[in-house]
């Protein structure tokens, strides 16, 4: 009867329930599916290849838009309404609050990917796709979701205005998603470091179906770095 829940999981569950009660989440999911579905099916029959490459190719850009739309509310709304005070005076640490909200955003983004299995199913039904890149693509998508959720959460902790939070997160995410497309304009010696900073580059590397520890390390540190910054941002508000 008195099963104890860890505090972050209670927060994660509440936030997840809030997603399912919020029209914004449904609009975001609907737009994401409409958009990705259009991109998938419009090119699928044209190219006549049973694969999800186009879908995964555009995914970093789509996530750069849709993930911040899901995370923008998480802290800014609490700050605006004042409920952050009721939350933070419960027996929670800043890390609990940040991690709980992160898990909810990540889970919702992951759930948003589930309907896209239809694309994979279509590919299997009509052809004989390579399984490796497909698994890699979905795995990469999860890493990308984690990294961008952390960025979105950080942006949300900076302001009480959801729209501002959205644009801060969008700016950071789109930069990380597209930086590898603009590498030609940079001098050769900064190309290497910039490529390593690019989320798009690491994502495409995983989506080819090759798991490299450098890519995993990249997404793990990206996520940890922005979650850490979010905790710092919350603590800084408390401090004098």
């Amino acid at each position, binding site marked *: 009867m008195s099963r104890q829940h860890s*505090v972050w999981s209670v927060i994660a569950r509440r936030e997840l329930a*809030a997603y399912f009660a919020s029209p914004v989440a449904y609009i975001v999911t609907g737009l994401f599916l409409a958009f990705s579905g259009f991109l998938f099916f419009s090119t699928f029959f044209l190219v006549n290849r049973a694969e999800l490459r186009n879908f995964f190719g555009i995914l970093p850009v789509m996530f750069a838009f849709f993930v911040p739309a899901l995370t923008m509310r998480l802290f800014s709304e609490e700050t605006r309404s*004042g409920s952050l005070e009721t939350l933070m005076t419960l*027996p929670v640490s800043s890390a609990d609050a940040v991690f709980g909200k992160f898990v909810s955003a990540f889970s919702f983004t992951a759930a948003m990917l589930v309907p896209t299995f239809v694309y994979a199913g279509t590919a299997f039904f009509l052809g004989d796709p390579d399984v490796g890149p497909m698994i890699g693509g979905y795995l990469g998508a999860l890493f990308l979701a984690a990294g961008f959720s952390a960025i979105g959460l950080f942006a949300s902790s900076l302001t009480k205005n959801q729209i501002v939070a959205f644009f801060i997160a969008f700016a950071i995410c789109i930069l990380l998603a597209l930086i590898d497309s603009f590498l030609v304009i940079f001098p050769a010696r900064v190309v290497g470091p910039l490529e390593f900073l690019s989320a798009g580059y690491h994502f495409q590397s995983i989506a080819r179906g090759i798991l490299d520890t450098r890519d995993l390390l990249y997404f793990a540190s990206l996520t940890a770095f922005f979650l850490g910054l979010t905790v710092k941002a919350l603590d800084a508000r408390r401090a004098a």
Partner: protein
Amino acid sequence: MIEVERVSRSFGSFTAVDDVSFSIRKGEIVGLLGPNGAGKTTTMRMITGFLDPSAGKVTIDGMDITGDSREIKRKIGYMPESAPLYSDMIVEDYLVYVARMQGIDDAGKVSAIAGLTGLGDVMHKNIGDLSRGYRQRVGLAHALLHDPEILVLDEPTAGLDPNQIIEVRNLIKEIGRTRTVIISTHILSEVEMLCDRVIIISRGKIVADSPTGELRQRFGHRATLRVQLSGCTPDELGKAASSIGGVAAFTAEEGDETVSTDGTKCVLTAGVLSIEGERDVRPDVFSLVKDRGWILYEMSIRSNSLEDVFRSLTTGGEES
């Protein structure tokens, strides 16, 4: 139980709380009283660990609130001003959520608290759709759910209608019997009704800290007596009034214009006598007037209410 030692908090260049110290014993019900913007909320936020002090420290049962705060937060039930809650949740879900956050997974506890705070009828309503009174009660339920030793309530009756105020006060009185309670308010009668002790804050500083009963004793016996008469000059009146024992000061005022019995217009001599102590000076004034042959038009006494005490303490020498 709660020790606030030389605590200050500033926001940029603005000092909201300035070198405040007090300690609260177990079981006390303390009222933090002060005008809006005096620093009540900031003080409470530092006690509950939502804000760190800029200087000084707050300890609860000897533990520093900025250090091991999770352990301490468990001892405190806090209702922030105007009870900011998740407006998209229904009441029952919210209380279950708070219970889980506090490590309670007992459905009986939630319904018990709902009963105590009178939320039975609205358990399935959205918090955002509730009236202010009910939202306040959800806030109280939020603060009470884990049976905290310390209850911190920021303006628990603000914005309620008179009936709701009475209900909430009774509830606080009821739950305060076994707990340490700090409430903030700018309503004096509330403090008198609920609190054992009152701390008056003005512009971030403590201007009075005493048991509620003593506050009235210390300041409540002062009174002012206003007199208007004819047949003397203000100087004569002042000199005569000052000779009466218990009159601390005399201030001449502008008298009314009146028409005397013989039909001529005249202006009355008026003044206010500040009286200290418990002796009633009105018989002395009467016999004084009778002896000198003056004519008395008005004699009205007004005892200083707690409102006057509050006003004089919190306007802090800007007037007078």
